[in-house]
C-alpha cells in the first residue's frame, strides 16, 4: 500500500483528502493529551499550545529528565475511547488536524471529525519502543501539574507510520469491525458447546 507523507500541523483540506485505510508517515509537531487534559480543555480550560491543525496524541509517555531537557523512552498510544465524552468539544473548540491513539472512537467524535475536517490516526498499542524511536525531540511540556504521564508534551516526530481508521467522510473502520464481529458473536452464542 502506498504511504502518504503527512506533516503536522495540517489543514482541514489535507485531512478531508485522507480516507480510512490510508497509511501515512507522519512528521512534524504533535501534542500529547489524555484524560486530565481532555477534561480540562472540554470544560473550557485554555490550551497552553495553539492546537490548530496539530495532531493531538492520546499518550502518556515514559520520560526521563536530562539536565534542562527531556527524553522520551516509551510512547505508545493509550485507549482513545476514554476521551469520547470530551473529544468532540475539543475538536470544535481547538480545530486540531488529527486525533491519534488506539482502539478508535465513538459517534460523537465521528460526527465532529466530519463537520470540522479532521481524521483519526491509529497506532499500534504497546509498540512503545518503536514509536519512541520516531520521536526526534521533546520541544515543550505544559500542565505538568497533572503528573508526567498526563502532561501536555509537545513532541517532534519524523516518519511515524500511522493508519487512518476514521476519516472526515464519516467512515470508521472500528465501527465496521465492531458491527461485523457482533453478527458473528450472535451466531456463536446460539451454537451450544459440548464439554
Amino acid at each position, binding site marked *: 500500500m502506498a504511504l502518504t507523507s503527512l506533516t503536522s500541523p495540517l489543514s482541514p483540506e489535507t485531512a478531508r483528502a485522507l480516507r480510512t485505510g490510508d497509511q501515512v508517515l507522519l512528521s512534524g509537531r504533535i501534542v500529547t493529551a489524555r484524560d486530565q487534559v481532555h477534561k480540562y480543555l472540554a470544560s473550557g480550560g485554555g490550551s497552553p499550545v495553539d492546537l490548530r491543525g496539530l495532531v493531538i496524541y492520546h499518550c502518556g509517555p515514559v520520560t526521563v529528565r536530562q539536565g534542562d531537557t527531556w527524553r522520551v523512552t516509551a510512547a505508545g498510544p493509550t485507549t482513545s475511547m476514554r476521551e469520547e465524552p470530551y473529544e468532540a468539544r475539543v475538536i470544535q473548540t481547538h480545530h486540531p488536524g488529527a486525533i491519534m491513539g488506539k*482502539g*478508535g472512537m465513538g459517534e460523537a467524535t465521528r460526527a465532529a471529525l466530519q463537520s470540522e475536517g479532521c481524521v483519526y490516526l491509529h497506532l499500534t498499542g504497546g509498540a512503545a519502543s518503536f514509536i519512541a524511536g520516531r520521536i526526534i525531540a521533546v520541544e515543550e511540556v505544559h500542565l505538568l501539574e497533572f503528573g508526567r504521564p498526563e502532561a501536555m508534551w509537545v513532541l517532534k516526530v519524523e516518519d511515524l507510520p500511522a493508519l487512518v481508521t476514521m476519516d472526515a467522510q464519516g467512515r470508521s473502520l472500528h465501527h465496521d*469491525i*465492531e458491527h461485523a464481529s457482533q453478527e*458473528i458473536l450472535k451466531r*456463536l452464542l446460539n451454537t451450544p458447546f459440548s464439554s
Partner: protein
Amino acid sequence: MMNEIHLLSSVTELMEKACTMLPDDVHAALSRALETEQEGSIARDTLKTILQSARLSRERGIPLCQDTGVPLIIVRTFPGPAMFAIETAVVEGLRQLTERGILRQNCVDPVTGRNTGDNIGEHVPQIHFLPAREATSIGVMFKGGGSENVSTQYALPHTGLGADRDLDGVRKCVLDAAFQAQGKGCSPGILGICIGGDRASGYLIAKETLFRRLDERNPSPVLAKLEDAIVGQANSLGIGPMGLGGSTTLLGARVASAGRHPACYFVTVSYSCWATRRARIELDEKGRIRRWL
C-alpha cells in the same frame, strides 16, 4: 538470613526484566500468529510492528509499553522476618525503577488527583504473601490500565447472553468479553478466566492465571477443551490485532475454577494485552536469584 542488598538487587532485576522483556512463550505465539495473517493485511503489518517493538525493548532495555502498569507481586516464603525485608525491597525497587525511567509514574491519589510520582500510594503496591515450606519465590506482573479497563465480571444466569450456570454459559460470557474489548485492550490478548469464587477472589484468581505459560496445557481436560473453544471462537470474530480486523484476536485463554457460594456463579475475565509483563524468580537463602521460573 536474607541480605537486604541482595534482595533489593534481585527484586529490581526481576521487575526490570518483567517490564522490558516479552516472555518467550508470548513471543512464540505472536510469531506463529504472524504466519496465519495474510500478506499485505493490516493484521500482518500490526503483528510485524509489535514484534519489531518487542525486539527493540529487549535489545535496549526499555519498557515494552509506555504504560508500565500496576504491579501485582506474589511472594511465596516461609513466614518470618524475611517478609518485611522483601516488602522493603519491593517498595525501594519500584522507586528506583521509576526514577530511572523504567517505570512510568502510575499511581494517582483518587481523592486529591495528584500523581504520587513514585508508584507508591495507599494500598499500592499490592504484595500478596503465601506460606511456603520450600525456597522463596517472587512473581511480578505489571498490567496496564487499558487491559484493566476491559477486564470484567459476569454474574450468571445472564439473560442478555442466554448464559446459564454451566460451562456453556461461561463460554458465552468470555466471548462477550472478547467482543466488548475489541482492540481497546491491545489485542491479540490473553484471557485469564476464573469460574466461581466471590467478587474479590474471582478477579485475583483470574489475574493470577495469567502467570501460566501459553504452552502449558491445563491439567483439567474439561477446562483445556473450554480454553481451546474460547480461543478458536474468539479468533473467528474477525476483530484481529488492535481491533483492525484479522484472525488473531486472542493468543490464549487460561481458565481456573474456584469454589462458589450456592447463590453465586461469577465468571471473571482478566484481559492481558499482547504486551504481557510477567516474571518469576526463586531466591537462595541470602536473597540472591537462584533461578528464573
